[in-house]
């Protein structure tokens, strides 16, 4: 039993990592639910990669990484709007173009600067065990903002997931709420990348919410399942990282994705059995 609890009792790094993971899990549970239900995984992925040049640029200029990440996310969201407004290209094409363009720019910036040697990995995969108190505070504030916005916008967000035309026909500003949702995704990526990394935050947005979609009959329940899966993944992932010296962020996300496949298999088997009985 000690192996399961001891790492978190006397080790400040592990305690902060666990707390950060719980905060990331709760934030991603809410935002990830909308990402999954509205089929916005590609823009989520693109945002996760798109922050790279912003972070690299900020680090080269000696500015806060989070500020750079926010600029990268803003360029991604604004760029998608710009391309789709000025061409007949689809949203997917616009996202793909910016996604690969910003990722390439980020790699060029990192490779051309001596200052950033070795930092690419920490940007992409985070520094779970090196979380500072200021990161925890930022993550807690992000969670609070996400909670407040989600409660305030619960009805239009649900309608948007259901039917965009119905949302507008009922008098809600659908485009406005769509942008607000994008802002929540971008904000979650920007704040969470220092903990789990810009690549792995995408996994925390998708995998726990994916499990929720498999198990829940209601959106609130889906968010709760996502939060539980996220927290369990954080705990198990950090534990594996401690005992086997695995990369912490990757272990957490790997656990979440593994849980998704276990649940998917279970749900499929249950349906097969029910089908045979029927």
């Amino acid at each position: 039993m000690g192996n399961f609890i001891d790492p978190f009792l006397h080790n400040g790094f592990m305690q902060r990592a666990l707390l950060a993971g719980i905060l990331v899990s709760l934030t991603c549970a809410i935002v990830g639910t909308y990402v999954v239900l509205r089929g916005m995984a590609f823009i989520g992925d693109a945002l996760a990669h798109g922050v790279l040049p912003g972070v690299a640029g900020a680090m080269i200029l000696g500015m806060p990484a989070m500020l750079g990440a926010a600029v990268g996310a803003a360029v991604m969201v604004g760029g998608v709007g710009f391309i789709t407004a000025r061409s007949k290209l689809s949203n997917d094409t616009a996202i793909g173009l910016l996604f690969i363009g910003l990722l390439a720019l980020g790699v060029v910036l990192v490779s051309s600067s001596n200052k950033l040697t070795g930092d690419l990995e920490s940007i992409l995969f985070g520094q779970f065990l090196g979380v500072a108190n200021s990161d925890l505070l930022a993550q807690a504030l992000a969670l609070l903002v996400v909670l407040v916005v989600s409660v305030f916008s619960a009805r239009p967000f649900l309608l948007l997931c259901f039917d965009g035309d119905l949302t507008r026909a009922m008098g809600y500003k659908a485009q406005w709420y769509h942008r607000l949702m994008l802002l929540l995704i971008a904000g979650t990526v920007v704040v969470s990348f220092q903990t789990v990394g810009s690549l792995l935050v995408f996994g925390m947005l998708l995998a726990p919410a994916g499990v929720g979609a498999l198990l829940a009959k209601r959106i609130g329940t889906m968010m709760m399942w996502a939060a539980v899966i996220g927290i369990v993944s954080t705990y198990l992932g950090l534990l594996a990282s401690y005992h086997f010296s695995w990369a912490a962020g990757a272990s957490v996300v790997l656990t979440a994705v593994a849980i998704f496949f276990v649940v998917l298999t279970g749900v499929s088997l249950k349906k097969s059995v029910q089908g045979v009985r029927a």
Partner: protein
Amino acid sequence: MSGTAVVARRLSVGYGSRAVLSGVEAFLKPGGSTALVGSNGSGKSTLLKTLAGLLPVVEGGLEILGRPVGESSQRVAYLSQFHQSGFVLPLRAIDVVRMGRFDQRSRFARRSRADDVIVSESMELLKVLELADRPLRDLSGGQQQRVYLAQVLARRSDLLLLDEPTAGLDAPGRAAYIDALNFERSRGAAIVTATHDVGEASMCDRVLLLAGRVIADGPPNVVMTPENLLETFGIGLTKVGDQLVVTEHHHDH
């Protein structure tokens, strides 16, 4: 409800500045019903979306419930032809119907007893009350369509805009739909439906036959002549009871 439900004058509807349907003159009273009949691409869904405030008017005048279009959304119910993600969403049938009440109360107000009664009545009318706790994604297409119709009813609107409302409905579903429409009309709601179904159109006070322009406009027994149907659908049709029988092909439609 007093006043008018829909007033359209020399109305053109379409996308951007491109009109797909022109010359619509319409006047719909409370409790009245109009069917928009035409083949695919005739402009009936575009007209319905314009009435719902989803598309801007290309040209002409349009008033909904005595106000410029788009300003009475709380009093209008719209049923779209397609639903984007019904199979993915973790929602029960009753949650979908409850959505119809979302804009009928203030942002943070909890669901009232009156809301619950209206939701139950609407589901009962469409014969889906026993499906209330079933996940939407587990229902058949016809059952889902009845749930969507119950959502429209739950709005207790003054104007119902229904795009292909009977799509996927079986005979009991259609019977429930007709009962629901009669209920709505009896309480003074006006109804506009876009449909291919001539039987459904015959139940309305007025029919607009559309093919990029208004081919004919008037009571169903006057409007649905073989000549008008030939011009509307591009094939010769004769109405026999509730059915259309193909009689000849039109070559230049």
